[in-house]
């Protein structure tokens, strides 16, 4: 315990005393226990968000040949319990993906001030919690541009679960990118429901997808968790294109998936684990954007035939401009509004 406090003091000064970094790392390394990962409700093998988190932990294990612990919760009531159990057993950092963890983390992190925590997709403002956010708007900007370039009808669609700032950020980035690639593009935007239950309602999502296709949309971006597959299915059934979200969903409907807006949750987990190991763990908000490799438009063998050289060139141009700061993609969450629609 003492070495830990000492190491913290060292790390606090590390910015000033360059030589302190190595010593701090040494001290932390000696007091370190296994890092831990606790998945969100959907579980480890959800082919999406949580599975990417698991991939990140596996990357850490493979690179360092070190173990880590992980746990799948069965009910919401286990969240605090699981956090406490890991904290008590000395695990650090404890990484939890998903904004539903915000409340349990803010409670347990106060009880264990010497344990490091990392939460993905939410902000918990405590001295021992790292909050990892993604610039969803930047990734959505790229897929929006691709959608506008691919569209022949001049109309594209966006389907999301419900009116929520994080989800609106996807939509707002998507519209900005689409308008940047084609100023005349029309974007249809629909919400599936009014609350979290909308993430499961694939039937309404499918009906919305069909409705957008009937109104002329020929590319549909579905940012709605599991329900999104309903809209992607509707797009595939109608012979138009869908865009997946969170993980690379290009494999779902080969030939009908234009791309996916990928959030590199694996990188966030890997970074948290690795930083602790190296003694560089920092609390506070960490935002992973395009430049940090946190978001991207997925390219693989499934969608390669759909992306023309011309589209790729425009995409590369946008990527370069976002990275250089020439294009600043507006974040809906910054002022709860979107400059374009």
């Amino acid at each position, binding site marked *: 315990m003492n070495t830990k406090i000492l190491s913290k003091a060292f790390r606090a000064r590390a910015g000033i005393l360059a030589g302190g970094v190595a010593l701090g790392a040494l001290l932390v390394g000696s007091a370190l226990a296994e890092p831990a990962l606790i998945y969100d409700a959907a579980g480890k093998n959800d082919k999406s968000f949580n599975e990417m988190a698991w991939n990140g932990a596996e990357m850490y294990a493979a690179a360092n040949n070190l173990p880590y612990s992980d746990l799948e919760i069965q009910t919401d009531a286990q969240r605090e319990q699981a956090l406490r159990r890991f904290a008590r057993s000395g695990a650090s950092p404890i990484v939890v993906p998903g904004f539903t963890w915000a409340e349990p983390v803010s409670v347990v992190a106060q009880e264990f001030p010497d344990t490091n925590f990392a939460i993905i997709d939410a902000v918990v403002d405590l001295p021992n919690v790292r909050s990892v956010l993604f610039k969803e708007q930047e990734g959505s900007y790229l897929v929006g541009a691709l959608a506008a370039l691919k569209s022949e009808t001049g109309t594209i669609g966006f389907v999301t679960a419900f009116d929520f700032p994080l989800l609106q950020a996807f939509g707002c980035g998507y519209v900005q990118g689409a308008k940047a690639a084609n100023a005349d593009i029309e974007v249809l935007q*629909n919400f599936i429901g009014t609350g979290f239950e909308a993430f499961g309602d694939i039937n309404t999502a499918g009906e*919305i997808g069909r409705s957008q296709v009937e109104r002329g949309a020929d590319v549909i971006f579905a940012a709605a968790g599991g329900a999104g597959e309903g809209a992607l299915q509707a797009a595939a059934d109608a012979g138009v294109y869908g865009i997946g979200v969170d993980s690379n969903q290009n494999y779902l409907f080969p030939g009908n998936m234009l791309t996916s807006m990928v959030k590199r949750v694996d990188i966030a987990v890997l970074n948290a684990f690795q930083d602790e190991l190296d003694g560089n763990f920092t609390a506070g908000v960490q935002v992973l954007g395009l430049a940090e490799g946190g978001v991207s438009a997925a390219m693989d063998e499934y969608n390669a035939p759909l992306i023309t050289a011309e589209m790729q060139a425009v995409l590369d141009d946008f990527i370069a401009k976002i990275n250089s700061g020439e294009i600043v993609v507006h974040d809906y969450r910054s002022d709860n509004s979107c400059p374009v629609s």
Partner: protein
Amino acid sequence: MNFFSDVILMLDSSIRLAVPILLACLAGLYSERSGIVDIGLEGKMLGAAFAAAAIAAVTGSAWLGLLAAIFVSSGMAMIHAIASINMRGNQIISGVALNFLALGATVFVGHSWFKRGGSTPNLGTDARFSPIELPFAEQLGGIPIVGEIYEQLISGHNLIVYVAFLAVPVTAWVLFRTRFGLRLRAVGENPTALDTAGISVTKLRYQALIIGGILCGLAGAYLSTGQGASFSDNMTAGRGFIALAALIFAKWRPVPALWTCLLFGVLSAAQIRLQGVEFPLIGEVPVQAIQALPYILTVVLLAGFIGRSVAPKAVGQPYIKER
């Protein structure tokens, strides 16, 4: 796109949205007419939706999926039957328990089976019910209005849609024109009288619940293998409860049940179309207001025009045979 074909497309969507509610509503009708409250419609649909998607994903056959859905849903109806008919338990509690059971069990089984966080793999074309083109749809489609309605609105739905719409006149006929229907209505009003006449109350109620189970099975299979192509956690999203409300508004009668469910379908489809649309004078309405529209209008229209709705007299009371 002109106004007429826009309306047709919206009505087409309304039909697809109304079908699961209609089937569940008819299931509730049989059950409640026999005197058993059926609050577990939601759970039975959810269980059936999972069974259909899981079995269709494993076997590649939509028909086997449908059979599994009916099997699971009827099995759940039998749990309800044993609890509320034989054990004379509280029917509301038994129904609520079924809803919870379905909510948890589908995700639990699905996750240990497919390892996809509770959802099932996407189904290929063979593993789900595809649209059926009715005869001459293409030829008649050229005729203005009538032909277009036939081609786009009536033709091109999957099998379960047609079964659902056929189930309405069949239910009306069974209920009001057959001996079984007469007894079914009687057992929900006055089971003692029926028992005195030497007819088994228990058997009739079991029959009603099995029919309800089959209809819920169809509704569930429609959600995951007809309209959709996979199962996802809590995918019924409250449709079973809307069906219950529709049943009350329809005063436990099949034809009004059809209209109520269609009305809800139309309003839901309109809701999807109206999101983000600029209205004259008002401008853009907040999306939440538009999304609440089906519910608000249903309440206003039905509460305003429906009049008194009286449930079958014996509904909810376990029947105790006098000695």
